[in-house]
């Protein structure tokens, strides 16, 4: 018999406001080690705000956020060292090559140049960009650039990956590639993943899903359980409709 998996991410009772506007209200969720968890919500649900709190771009005043047991407020260094992030907006330097971007990221995580070189070769192979190492980001397609961002997020060997709507703006083929790539990472490398999305077809029945709407968690559990006998999108609309009517 095996015990419960250790938690890669643990969020308890987090709220956040921008002036009078409440962006998050008492949000709690957990991502165990080696699990693909989806954070499902429409635009404006609070997904990016939650990611900004996890990554310490904003300060969480209420509740607690722990990455592999490290509180991001009290021990931001060890928490951020365990974390790989793919932001919603593109954040690679377009004028630099993949290697130069990866090398910069590696340095920001305290890796030596030789360590970075070896690691970069491994991660670009993993995201199937091995032949593009010296290509400028501006010369890559949207899907390739996204995979390069995932490679960068993996550079320092994080045990938790946060991806904020990583398939937005990609064509169908690139979307599928990115989704499959991340699912492979979970299956083969045991990385815990929190995948923020508003696209229901990116979620599988066996995935852990947290439905976030207007800053509140409306449902949390396996996608198949949340869907019940319906499709996930119908269940989502029923949930958010009920919340809106209340």
């Amino acid at each position: 018999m095996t015990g419960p998996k250790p938690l890669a991410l643990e969020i308890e009772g987090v709220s956040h406001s921008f002036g009078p506007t409440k962006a998050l209200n008492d949000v709690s969720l957990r991502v165990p080690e080696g699990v693909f968890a989806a954070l499902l919500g429409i635009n404006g649900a609070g997904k990016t705000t939650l990611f900004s709190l996890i990554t310490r771009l904003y300060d969480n005043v209420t509740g607690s956020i722990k990455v592999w047991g490290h509180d991001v407020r009290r021990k931001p260094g060890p928490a951020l060292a365990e974390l790989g992030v793919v932001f919603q907006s593109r954040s690679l330097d377009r004028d630099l090559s993949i290697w130069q971007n990866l090398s910069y990221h590696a340095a920001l995580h305290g890796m030596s140049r030789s360590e970075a070189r070896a690691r970069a070769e491994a991660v670009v192979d993993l995201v199937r960009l091995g032949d593009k190492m010296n290509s400028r980001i501006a010369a890559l397609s949207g899907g390739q650039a996204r995979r390069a961002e995932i490679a960068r997020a993996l550079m320092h060997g994080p045990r938790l990956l946060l991806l904020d709507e990583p398939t937005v703006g990609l064509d169908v083929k690139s979307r599928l590639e990115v989704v499959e790539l991340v699912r492979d990472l979970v299956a083969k490398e045991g990385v815990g993943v929190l995948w923020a999305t508003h696209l229901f077809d990116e979620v599988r029945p066996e995935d852990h899903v947290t439905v976030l709407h207007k800053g509140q968690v409306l449902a949390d559990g396996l996608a198949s359980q949340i869907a019940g006998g319906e499709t996930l999108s119908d269940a989502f609309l029923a949930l958010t409709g009920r919340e809106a009517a209340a």
Partner: protein
Amino acid sequence: MSDIGSNSALRAHRRLGWGGRLSAFRGVVWREMLRFAKQRERFVSALVRPLVWLFIFAAGFRSVLGLSITEPYETYVLYEVYVTPGLCAMIQLFNGMQSSLSMVYDRETGAMRTLLVSPFPRWFLLSSKLMAGVAVSIVQVYAFLAVAWFWEVEPPPMGYIMVLPALILSGMMLGAIGLFLSSTIRQLENFAGIMNFVIFPMFFASSALYPLWRMSESSVLLHDICALNPFTYAVELIRFALYGQLNLLALAVVVGVTIAFLGAAIFAYDPSKGLIAKRRGG
């Protein structure tokens, strides 16, 4: 790849030490240098701007602006010689504001997040960013001094070495001001205001183009404004160092202003305290 688990956690922890910080510092400076090398027009404009002042403005003023012996010069000097330290500081002033502009641009495009989600403390990352900007500005200043040498601006050879610490300090001060300004600017479009309200007043209301005693002959108030301008002290620190001397007052002001503005920038970029935290983004 299989780089997860306890080994990965241990390695991540080890990287947070001083060796890791050194790597992070090297990485930030390397990126800034790389970006600068790729922006050839930035280098050309950084060099052309002071050279236009040296070749045209100073040549024109040479005949109308007489200078009596002024410290640290031991004899009468050509106006070109007088104005050169001010132009070195001008290069650093523009570079500081350029760094500030790139911080605002990085914030708007999301690229700054790469820096801010590093596990190292925010003060360390911002200080590294500041030093990276200083390194870029020093390359530009030495390129300018090399060209100026052919224009009969020939400080003593030791001056080229003695001026380096002064350039580091003045670059830090001007970079710290730029860093703080970048935290207060909400949109890239607002940056034009910086040009009008920071760069030009700082440059013209200083001892860069004329000695303060000459200023007091025409307006005591203007003299007092120039004497309160920290840029004046950056210019004087460079001027004295270029001739192998130390201006203690200038040193004290430059160090003090650097500490004040860097502290303010670190406060502003702190997610739990500063101005950035009060904004909605992403």
